[in-house]
């Protein structure tokens, strides 16, 4: 009932580590850390500012001992309230940790501290001829640590992936104050990916080894105006299906264009209702020119009104200024602006846009829509007046309804903005109670006392009404009979505490002999034919499908998988993390936990940041965390140049689980029922 002062007792200890000037509890400081770019607010109890990376771990240790929540914060530019201290506690301000430690162009890696501004790294890389691929709109003022924690991305995401895809290794301080270094190609479950979009709820990223990419020699941009949004989206679908490597593919709707172009709007045909910005890059001018030609053809087939090509830097910037001018122009239309985000499968983009427009009309709101047509993201920029209670209310209701639109179209409520506080309720609408409980288990394994950025990402209130609605509509949980049998079997074994050896084709996992205690559980029965969605460039595959057979089937359709050649089943390749490249194309996963719960974490969108990154967690799980039922994989157009090679093969024999692998195992499979021999000795010694 009363606010208790938890900090003053610790003040002396904290001051000893960081110095007297760096622990702040005055009102101005606390107030200034009570907000971020999202819509929430709450005051911390203290703010600690670090001048050295080494100071963080001891401070975290003290705080976790005293059970005081702590929230890492750098630029504080995230849009969903990810750094709001909902339970009070201490803000760990790491924005002074902004050293670029080294840039290694040979290994194509840069080591940076978490507080390095994305734009500063880009400027440092530019003279060397490299760039850091994640390019969120906030690149000039957001930090790399924040980008990774939110798994941010921008227009270049389409070709180069998001922040998590460009992370090689992370130094993470876990909530108990331990320093860990995890790499994405480590043996065993991928913790780098798990930390990457956890918004500081599983640990604090202090240093990151990030991938750097050489600048392409040529970059060309095409803008194409269309009379309807459907035409624009059709054109973009066809462009992506050609297999041409697209750097960025953006779409804008009429209102966005009107506000951005202002007086120069009349320069375009008056029937223009949508515009596409298509950007290509490459080192071969001839290939690029050919690709440009075919893109222009596709645009004209889809009755494009005007098509402009920019080849010089100036022209390019002029075309991009149309898109980049939307936010500033909208900001000046009304006192406040809120940027909403969601992902839908690309194929339903026109319907989603239409529904969103209807909602906006219903609530009499003005908004410009900015669409990443390549990835299926829609960003309504809604303008309103925050001081008008009616406005605020309308915006809130409209935002929720828009989120429901995304979800009802089998999309995801967020992708690059994170979940934070503002969007956590939408997890209820996406996931069943079992799935949310599973996410809670993961959080509990890392952070038993709920101290690291508490109450973020995971919903605190139960609101599952929509979940049932949405799922009934889309029959998300329709399973093949074999899967039902498997789940029933696993439930039986869970109840009778029978240990299982998960085997599939037996390519990767050399299981011990079947004994009285351990029984085989064969997953190769999961072999329903794959479902290819050619327009959306995804394929849903059962775990028992052979990888090469799948590839052959895809090749017949003119598609391919962007992974090296691998033997064995899809489930086996993923569970063994035979090659870390598989994580790049893994979009969704359906699993059965050791206790026989069916969990569906599959969204057929290019990016979905809802909850923790479960897909990566099951890469390298060796069947010890559960059974993979099916996956959604990204496919690409086969143009015969699959020259990918496996850089590194992992072997189960080399796998030594670290503390957090074991903690996760204990949380997910407390009785050690699945593939028990892997963790057996470690669990016992513990």
């Amino acid at each position, binding site marked *: 009932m009363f606010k208790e002062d938890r900090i003053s007792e610790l003040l002396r200890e904290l001051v000893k580590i960081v110095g007297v000037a760096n622990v702040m509890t005055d009102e*101005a*400081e606390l107030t200034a850390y009570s*907000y971020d770019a999202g*819509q929430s607010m709450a005051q911390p109890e203290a703010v600690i500012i670090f001048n050295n990376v080494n100071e963080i771990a001891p401070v975290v240790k003290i705080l976790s001992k005293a059970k005081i929540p702590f929230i890492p914060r750098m630029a504080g530019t995230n849009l969903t309230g990810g750094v709001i201290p909902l339970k009070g506690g201490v803000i760990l301000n790491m924005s002074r940790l902004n050293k670029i430690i080294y840039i290694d162009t040979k290994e194509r890696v840069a080591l940076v501290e978490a507080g390095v501004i994305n734009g500063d790294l880009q400027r440092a890389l530019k003279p060397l001829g490299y760039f850091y691929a994640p390019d969120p709109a906030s690149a000039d003022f957001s930090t790399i640590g924040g980008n990774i924690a939110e798994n941010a991305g921008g227009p270049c995401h389409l070709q180069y992936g998001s922040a998590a895809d460009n992370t090689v290794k992370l130094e993470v301080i876990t909530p108990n104050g331990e320093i860990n270094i995890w790499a994405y190609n480590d043996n065993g479950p991928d913790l780098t990916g798990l930390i990457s979009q956890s918004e500081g709820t599983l640990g604090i990223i202090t240093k990151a080894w990030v991938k750097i990419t050489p600048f392409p020699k040529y970059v060309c941009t095409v803008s194409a105006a269309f009379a309807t949004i459907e035409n624009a989206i059709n054109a973009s679908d066809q462009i992506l299906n050609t297999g041409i490597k697209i750097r960025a593919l953006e779409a804008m709707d009429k209102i966005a264009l009107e506000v951005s172009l202002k007086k120069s709007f009349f320069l375009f045909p008056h029937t223009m209702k949508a515009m596409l910005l298509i950007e290509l890059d490459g080192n071969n001018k001839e290939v690029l020119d050919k690709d440009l030609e075919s893109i222009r053809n596709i645009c004209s087939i889809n009755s494009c009104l005007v098509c402009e090509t920019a080849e010089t830097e100036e022209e390019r910037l002029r075309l991009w200024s149309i898109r980049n001018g939307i936010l500033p122009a909208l900001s000046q239309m009304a006192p406040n602006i809120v940027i909403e985000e969601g992902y839908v499968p690309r194929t339903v983009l026109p319907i989603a846009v239409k529904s969103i427009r209807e909602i906006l009309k219903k609530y009499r709101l003005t908004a410009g829509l900015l669409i990443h047509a390549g990835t299926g993201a829609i960003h309504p920029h809604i303008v309103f007046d925050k001081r008008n209670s009616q406005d605020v209310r309308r915006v809130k209701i409209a935002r929720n309804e828009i989120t429901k639109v995304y979800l009802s179209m089998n999309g995801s409520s967020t992708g690059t903005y994170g979940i934070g506080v503002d969007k956590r309720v939408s997890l209820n609408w996406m996931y069943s109670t079992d799935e949310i409980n599973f996410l809670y288990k993961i959080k509990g394994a890392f952070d038993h006392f709920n101290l690291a950025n508490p109450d973020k990402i995971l919903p605190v209130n139960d609101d599952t009404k929509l979940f049932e609605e949405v799922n009934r509509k889309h029959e998300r949980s329709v399973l093949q009979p074999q899967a039902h049998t498997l789940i029933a079997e696993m439930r039986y074994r869970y109840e009778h505490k029978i240990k299982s050896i998960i085997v599939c084709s037996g390519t990767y996992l050399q299981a011990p002999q079947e004994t009285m205690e351990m029984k085989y559980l064969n997953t190769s029965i999961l072999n329903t034919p794959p479902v290819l969605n050619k327009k959306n460039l995804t394929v849903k595959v059962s775990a028992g499908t052979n990888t090469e057979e799948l590839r052959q089937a895809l090749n017949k359709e003119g598609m391919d998988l962007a992974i090296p050649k691998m033997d064995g089943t899809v489930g086996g390749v993923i569970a063994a993390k035979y090659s870390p490249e598989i994580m790049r194309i893994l979009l969704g996963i359906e699993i059965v936990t050791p206790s026989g719960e069916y969990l569906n974490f599959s969204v057929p969108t290019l990016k979905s940041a809802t909850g923790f990154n479960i897909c990566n967690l099951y890469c390298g799980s060796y069947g010890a965390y559960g059974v993979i039922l099916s996956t959604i994989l990204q496919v690409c157009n086969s143009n015969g140049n699959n020259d990918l090679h496996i850089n590194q093969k992992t072997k189960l024999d080399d796998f030594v689980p670290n503390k957090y692998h074991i903690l996760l195992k204990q949380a997910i499979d407390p009785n050690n029922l699945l593939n028990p021999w892997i963790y057996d000795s470690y669990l016992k010694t513990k």
Partner: protein
Amino acid sequence: MNDKKNDKSALEIVKARRELDYSADDSQFAFKEYFENNDKVIFTENKEITLYDAASQCNRCGECQEICPSYSASKREPFSPRGRNQLIRLLLENKIKNANVLKESLYTCLSCGACKTQCHSRIPVDAIVSEVIKLYFPHKPGFIKKTALKTLLNFPLLYSLWLKVCYLFIWIGMPSLAKVLGVYSILGINTLYEKENILKKPPMLFATEILKKQFSDAHKRSIRWVYFAACSTNYIQPKVAKDTTTLLKRHFGEGILADNFCCGLSAQSCGDYAQAIQFAKKNIERYEALKQKFGRFIIVSDCSSCASFMKKYEALFYDDEEWRERASAFAASVKDIAELFTVDNFIKLQDCGSKEKRTVTYQDACGAVHDQHIFEAPRNLINHFEKDNFKEMPYSTACAGCFTFNQDVPEKILKITSDKKIKNIASIQSDLVVTSDVCCMMKINSELSKYYPHATAIHYSTYLTSMENKYKK
């Protein structure tokens, strides 16, 4: 009766609040009805907006942070434009009860206006901050400063004499005595500058005295321009004034010295707002007298801080209708030297830039770029002269760390800010830095002489004159 009315409206507010579906998410939504008494108007970029409206436009996106000198020096949120906006908003909403909480946050603002340029909603944080300081922390400058200001206002000649006595002390090697007399503390050059030897060789003849004969209004019938001698040009860098008037004469024909008073910025920046208004009034009166005599002309200042301040004169008189109109007419004829010349109207020169290899860069004066939005014109001209020699430095629009707009900024923040500027100048291996503000130029020069003596900073007028002399047909 009145109480009852208040009760009723309070009830309505409570009702409205209940209507909102309250969760942790939206506890911060405030209601406009609450703060009717905070209708203080600020005047910015020809737009009137109440203080509260301006502050609450902030969407907290954080785009202003990295370019803010005080934030990037401290990396602390209260020292960022976003932080200041939020704190001010909460203060106006009575959620922060004690205004002193904000003091440090407000006094660290350099008022450079970089955030204004960056902000999508164009929130005039500098104007908001100075208005709040005016409202909540009324302070008067110290005795010496106050006396100096009064002398400057009422007895400019006496002030010149006083200054000359000080300069004499410096010349004869007794700068400490000059410091005691302290007259130059209001020129935007306080003890910090003194330490940095800006006044090593102070001029014993001021610009107005040098140019008086040449540009007096005695025998002239019509003029095209009036030269406004800024304090820093007049009393510290008369050479710049000489260059500017030479340029003006050559390009625009006849003109005179304005015989003006200080623009008032020096009074405003040390907190004496009433005095600033007095200065402004005197200048406006002087302008009107000249206008009656000569008709139309432009007022040219070679100090961008002064020019930007004079262009904002209207803001000083927002509650005085008569003066406001007069101020607006005055402001309309003010021109910054940086916006005056373009490639087309400048004298044609021959093969410039080809003769020597050097790197020239342009430092934007805060007053020019953030208040007057002068960006392209000087760059185009320098680029035209220098060809490949011109190179844009990183963060060229960022403040260099002089404090013409706020004299109370902590030294530490200025130090980090100017260090960054020198780093950026050095990063492109520049030989010459051109800028349109005298204080800015002096600050950069004194820092350069310490850390990167290879380069020098010169005023835009000086640069243009030297170009003209060198490459004239």
